């Protein structure tokens, strides 16, 4: 079966941070600091700047997020249409996996 959620496949160790960044940006543009706080609240992990910007670099390079210009040193990032599509596909895939896991646990 062809997969539709392969945008984050070759992010390596940045796959999880990248997914959480996309989730964080799903409710509006945020700069790095706000993303870090939001991800900590949502997922309970606080990424270091090296990890956060390693993922941001890859997401921006793929066109999944876009930097918005700002007069401030803190440039916010927003989700692009491609990023939204990739996030929807990945979440649907994770949901399907979770359903299978729960079904198997229930029947165990």
């Amino acid at each position, binding site marked *: 079966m062809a997969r539709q959620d392969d945008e984050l496949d070759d992010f390596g160790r940045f796959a999880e941070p990248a997914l959480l960044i996309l989730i964080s940006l799903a409710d509006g543009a945020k700069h*790095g600091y706000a993303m870090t706080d939001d991800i900590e609240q949502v997922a309970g992990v606080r990424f270091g*700047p*090296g*990890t956060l910007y390693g993922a941001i670099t890859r997401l*921006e*390079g793929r066109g999944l997020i*876009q930097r918005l210009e700002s007069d401030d*040193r803190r440039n916010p990032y927003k989700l692009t249409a491609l990023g939204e599509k990739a996030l929807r596909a990945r979440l649907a895939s994770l949901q399907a996996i979770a359903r299978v896991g729960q079904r198997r646990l229930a029947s165990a």
Partner: protein
Amino acid sequence: MTWLLKLYPRVWQRRYGAEVADLLAGRGFSLAVAVDLVAGAIDVRLHPSATLAAATAATHEKDTTMSGRIASLVCAPAIGSKVSPADQWKAGGITIGMTIVLALIWMGVHVRIGDNPYVDSMSVMTYMFPIVFSMRYTYLKGRPASVQAILIGGMTLFIVAIMLAAGWITARM
């Protein structure tokens, strides 16, 4: 801890340095953050195409002029960012298969014609053409078919021209 940002390449520092420095501002020294920054710097050094792709994407958004588009083409990541394992196999297959076929053809021609400066110079094509043609699945992946055809055809003709010139020069020595 902002001094650790000096470990990153300049192109990365220009794009993200100020933002990361802002994140670090006011923080005391933390071994975990220092290790994270060093690991990040190593990653950026090992994968320069990711930074270049981000910088290129940003350039492309702003610059829609012809020169800007050409710059974005020239500055594109060295290896297509979407090269899959299947593409790598195809590229490898083309490189190896075509090298074998062209080497056999060249050997046949060499046996029939014998020593000839033009035939000798064409031996180079047996490994250069396969590399050029395999680019369709690596460096040129994702480019429009017309761009692939122009670049692969252009490089092929350029190699043939150089080899013919080399044969011509050798014949007159």
